[in-house]
């Protein structure tokens, strides 16, 4: 039970981490000029699609977890969550 909970937390954490990276791409980085053609309204559209995209990433996060448990590389692999008692 605790292991299942930890795995669920891990997958959700991995999903949110990937979402955070995409949000940084959309919201951070240097802005050179006012000629940005994707307006605020368009960014809203991007974020609307983000939730759908994150859902699709669940399978990706799961496969990474399995890769780690089978001795995959530690590079860019999220750390495991704490094990909980009970």
């Amino acid at each position, binding site marked *: 039970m605790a292991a299942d909970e*930890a795995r669920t*937390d*891990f997958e*959700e*954490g*991995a999903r*949110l*981490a*990937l979402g*955070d*990276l*995409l949000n*940084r*791409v*959309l*919201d*951070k*980085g*240097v*802005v*050179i*000029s006012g*000629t*940005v*053609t*994707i307006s605020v309204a*368009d*960014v809203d*559209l*991007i974020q609307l*699609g*983000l*939730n*759908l*995209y994150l859902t699709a990433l669940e399978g990706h996060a799961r496969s990474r977890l399995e890769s780690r448990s089978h001795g995959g590389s*530690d590079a*860019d692999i*999220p*750390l*495991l*969550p*704490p*094990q909980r008692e009970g």
Partner: protein
Amino acid sequence: MVDPMPTYLYCLLNEKADPPHGLTGLAEMAVRQLVVPVATEGVIAAWVSDVARGEVERGPEGARTHDSVCAAALATGTTPLPARFGQLFDSDEACATHLAERLPDLLPAFRRVAGAVEMAVTALLPASAAAPVTATGVATGREYLLRLREAHRHEAELASMSAHLRERIADAVGGLSREEAVRLSLTPRPHVAISHLIARAGEGAYRRALAPLATGSEPGAVVVTGPTAPYTFATLDS
């Protein structure tokens, strides 16, 4: 006369660096180097591609493609200044003109991220503290105000947990971090994301420093991601 295709900007480097052969960006267009001479500082190399107006993939897949180009630039060994997603110029010349105008701001930005990468830690906040509290569907004004007060209390609790976690992570990372930035999100699941600007060679030490947090008493998952181009720390002063 046919108008040139617009130029899409991915990132900037402060030295010449050819994109890997076959690297494509938005709309599967080839990524190329646009060199802008700088009188006293050598060159600025912009990684760009042609892209027809209306063909910029505005969904998350576009952001992912943008990041893949910045990641390829990071892999050259020189840290790029990643551009914010969505910057389109009328032509290469227009892009170069804007870059030349921003030169006084770009040079300190290059110095800030030189030799560094961005790492990030994302931590879930406890689900017990994340119970949804809404002020909708209530019968009386008193009930509404009580729910509102509970929502504020809940947010303050999450902010306090986030601050505590940030302190623990800062202690663990110690001198590895040149700079940090904290993002607290309440939706869709409360979590805190902390970015660090660290030296390229410090990735292994950074991961080892944070490993104990994943096996201690912290609630929820602690996830480390990176290295990525330093989006969070790529800002211009004006």
